């Protein structure tokens, strides 16, 4: 937090920073329910655009969950990259490919019972793991410094004071990955190369 | 009334011919022998079938206007030597036209474009003479940019007969021929897309024929497509 703001906190306004809205459980339950319900809509809606809109809602509520987890930068990235970028790309492609026909067709493939039971088994596994391994996850959550979140992530990605950070190399690789993906997408979608 | 116009024997000297404009540098009108030409198509139009024509006014009292004259020019000579009487050149009020037999049509037009540089087809239209055996005059109005000269080519065809399209000669003929088809029902062979252009596709009848009344309409089409009793 900026020093100016720090000093300002004690100037008259009765500070309630301790119970900031991000900490209330209602928000968590609301966002979680929104995420799961719209996630359900993503995979069940017949119309692909509806699925995409539901996915946007999921992504935004997950961004809200990030905010609750004191990860504002990740939340911002989530909104700007996922909701603003990837989903627009999805919608763009959905409009390019014929949608009216797919609305009339079957939604699920012929193997859907198998898929569903496999996923069910996976979910059981999760439930089992959580139930058994409850002790692994401490109840108390550490509080992270929210205001310097971005700086700290930057330090990890780029390094600080002349030293490279632990993820600098991975970061470069990731940019390479993006470059390859861009090239691949351009080449694949081009009519004639 | 057409007979009236034709019968008076001495035509007045064509004084005003050069006046209207400097239209025809290549047309030596003064050289042309001054004599009326009997079989010129416009000289014998039939009386229009349309009953709304007002009664004939006192035509014989008036002096008649200029008459079509034979047009002698290198162009006419050249093609007359080639095609003989199937082709005739005339001039009227300083405007030249060729009357050709319909069999000659695609060839003569092509030759006019290629040899005589009539590179610009101004207009294609038709005139309906219902009393005549060959009911339609089809008229090409041509212009030559290098010669700055106009020429009309006229041919007569019967109702129901078709005529070769000139789209391959002048692409502009496309819509013009479509309009002629639309208005007169004249078929153009070899036209790439001969369908109605100004009237709706399903319309019945060809409005510019003389037997099509001015208030006439395709009632059935109007009722089906516009949902009204009458378009009037």
């Amino acid at each position, binding site marked *: 937090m900026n020093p100016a703001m720090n000093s300002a906190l004690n100037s008259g306004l009765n500070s309630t920073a301790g119970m900031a809205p991000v900490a209330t459980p209602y928000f968590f339950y609301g966002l979680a329910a929104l995420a799961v319900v719209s996630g359900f809509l993503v*995979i069940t809606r017949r119309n692909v655009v509806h699925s995409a809109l539901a996915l946007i809602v999921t992504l935004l509520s*997950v961004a809200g969950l990030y905010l609750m*987890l004191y990860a504002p930068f*990740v939340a911002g990235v989530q909104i700007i990259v996922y909701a603003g970028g990837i989903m627009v790309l999805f919608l763009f492609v959905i409009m390019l*490919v014929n949608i009216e026909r797919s609305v009339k067709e079957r939604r699920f493939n012929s193997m859907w019972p198998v898929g569903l039971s496999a996923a069910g088994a996976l979910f059981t596994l999760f439930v089992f793991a959580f139930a058994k391994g409850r002790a692994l996850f401490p109840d*108390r959550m550490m509080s992270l410094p929210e205001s310097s979140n971005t700086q700290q*992530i930057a330090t990890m990605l780029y390094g600080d004071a002349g030293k490279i950070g632990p993820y600098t190399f991975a970061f470069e690789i990731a940019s390479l990955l993006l470059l*390859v993906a861009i090239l691949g997408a*351009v080449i694949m979608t081009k009519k004639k190369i | 009334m057409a007979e009236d116009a034709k019968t008076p024997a001495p035509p007045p000297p064509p004084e005003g011919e050069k006046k209207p404009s400097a239209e025809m540098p290549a047309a030596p009108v003064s050289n042309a022998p001054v004599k009326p030409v009997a079989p010129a198509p416009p000289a014998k139009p039939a009386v229009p079938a349309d009953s709304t024509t007002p009664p004939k006014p006192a035509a014989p009292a008036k002096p008649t206007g200029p008459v079509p004259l034979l047009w002698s020019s290198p162009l006419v000579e050249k093609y007359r030597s080639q095609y003989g009487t199937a082709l005739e050149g005339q001039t009227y009020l300083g405007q030249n036209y060729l009357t050709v037999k319909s069999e000659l049509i695609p060839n003569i037009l092509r030759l006019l474009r290629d040899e005589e540089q009539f590179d610009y087809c101004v207009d294609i239209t038709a005139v309906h003479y219902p009393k005549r055996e060959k009911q339609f005059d089809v008229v090409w109005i041509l212009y030559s940019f290098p010669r700055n000269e106009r020429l009309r080519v006229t041919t007569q065809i019967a109702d129901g007969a078709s005529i070769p399209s000139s789209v391959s000669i002048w692409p502009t003929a496309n819509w013009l021929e479509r309009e002629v088809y639309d208005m007169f029902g004249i078929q153009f062979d070899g036209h790439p897309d001969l369908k109605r252009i100004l009237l709706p596709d399903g319309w019945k009848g060809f409005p510019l024929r003389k037997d099509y009344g001015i208030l006439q309409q395709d009632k059935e089409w109007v009722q089906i497509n516009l949902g009204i009793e009458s378009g009037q």
Partner: protein
Amino acid sequence: MVPITTIHYLVVAAALFVLGVIGVLTRRNVVVILMSIELILNAVNLNLVAFSRMWGNLHGQVFSIFITVDAAAEAAAGLGILIAFFRNKETVNVDEIDLLKW
């Protein structure tokens, strides 16, 4: 009210993950399958961020950023393939995409 702990986030993430898996395994439309993969990646991200909060360091968040990058690359490449495929076969259904050629 029970305070929200890591396990809560993990349950949400697990639910999203399973929904994603169901989508991938049962839907026919490639676009929906790609979106289900995004759902799975988001579930993973949520887990990572929750763990990051749990341990009080930022490695999880950095990881989630990498996964976001990966998701973007995957979406671009996947949709590129989809368009290239649609152009040839005029279908976006996986069970019609069963030849190793087009």
